[in-house]
């Protein structure tokens, strides 16, 4: 079990929709691991999750741990709180991260000052335990 620092009742932001397609992603995140579907035939990870490899159309799939490293491929700063639960975070960053293994994820940042946001910035995954059941993978600047 992961440790949970946040008070569960206090978390008012939207939570992921868990489906048969994405359940392993969220189960791994809860263990503080970043897993993506991987095709045994063409040896590539892909996203979003689904029942078939989008490149070779084969179904020899498994979920595998990724390095968790990547670079910011795009970023934005929200200055408007469409979600009242994000109002206290304004302005907040949303990033797309291109993982070393290829796929890009939309995510948030942890301890990443806004003046460091840049396309190409090396980042690594970090985990934010937001409720007892849900951990959100986010990204912070790489330390090396």
């Amino acid at each position: 079990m992961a440790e949970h620092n946040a008070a569960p009742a206090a978390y008012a932001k939207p939570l992921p929709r868990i489906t048969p397609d994405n359940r392993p992603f969220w189960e791994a995140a809860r263990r503080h691991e970043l897993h993506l579907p991987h095709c045994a035939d063409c040896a590539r990870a892909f996203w979003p999750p689904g029942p078939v490899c989008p490149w070779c159309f084969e179904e020899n799939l498994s979920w595998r741990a990724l390095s968790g490293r990547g670079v910011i491929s795009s970023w934005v700063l929200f200055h408007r709180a469409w979600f009242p639960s994000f109002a206290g975070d304004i302005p907040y960053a949303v990033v797309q991260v291109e993982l070393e293994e290829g796929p890009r994820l939309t995510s948030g940042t942890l301890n990443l000052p806004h003046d460091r946001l840049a396309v190409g910035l090396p980042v690594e995954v970090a985990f934010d335990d937001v409720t007892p059941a849900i951990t959100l993978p986010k990204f912070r600047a790489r330390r090396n």
Partner: protein
Amino acid sequence: MPARERRAALRDRTAIVGVGASVFGRGLPQSQLQLGLRAFKAALDDAGLRREDVDGLAINLGWPLGTDYDRVAETFGLDIRYANQTWTHGRFVTLALQHAALAVHAGLAECVACLTACSFTQEKDLLGGPHDIEGMREEGGTHGENPVYGQTSPSGGAALAFSRYMARYGATGDQLAAVPMALRRHAALNPAAIMREPLTLEAYRASRWVIQPLRIYDYCLVSDGACCVLVTSVERARDLAQRPVLLSGMQGIRSGRGEFIFGPPGLGINQQPESARTPLAADLGVYEMAGIDRAAVDAFYTYDAFSPLVLFALERFGFCGPGEAAAWVQGGRIGPGGELPVNTSGGLLSEAHVSGWNSIVELVRQLRGACGPRQVSDAHVMQWGTPWGDSVLFHN
């Protein structure tokens, strides 16, 4: 018959014979059906047709924003034998027009009414935040929404795309400002436009961020209004009140891992492979089908919900190269009297957000020569082409 010949057989076989619009405004009290009725009756009057002449509907409204085709048919007392239902997204404008033309050409309908009606000021909760149910899809909504991380509103996808575009090509916010400024200059010549006062670069620079790198002037209006476009066969069109505007060429929406709805192919948003992708012949079938060269296009119309989309559409159809549009739109090139006027009614940025149909109505009026002070001189060919790659080429 090869596809190329089948396409050629459809060239200039259908026409827009009537256009109509409701009043455009913000906070209008009318329902979508009330606005839609004004547009529908105006289009019938414009064409010299009666309600009984319309036997097809291509509906670009409805869930999650209102009523469906059957409610429209029931309410207006129509007898419909062909219907195509889409809902309120700009991505479905071309699709509705194309279905109308295809149904007429195939003989499934004689005259198809394309109808949209928007009540965005009443329904703005659907455009981002907790009530945007479309944006709540797992692994991201239709414009790249991901509410878990606060990525919401269709504009979030345009912001992600433009942020990457800036980094890749060195485009600047000042360059982007040329888009809303040009469209505002068009709108100043259009009495129906909601926003007509001049927009200066200084005002643009001083305006607030919404989702950085987008400022408030990069956003379409949140407005209300309806448009209707009547499509019939070219034979029928010859007997009607207006000079027909022919549907000469078309190409469909593109979709796949290389596509992101609010970014050009090759940009590298979501799972797009990164490249500096110049459109190939296979990406430009609209010109080949019409037998009309891109250089003959007198004005270009696109879905300008957010100003970067204009840049992406221009690159998509090869008016300039990948990464070049931000520089290309400078110097009045897309404004009134420019080399390629874009969205001459003021578009969604300055006229009204009628899902893009206000631009279809506008280009039809332009091709009739009926646009008064904003008339594009000697206009024969106009193109509707979207950032997601579909298009219709019209000529008079």
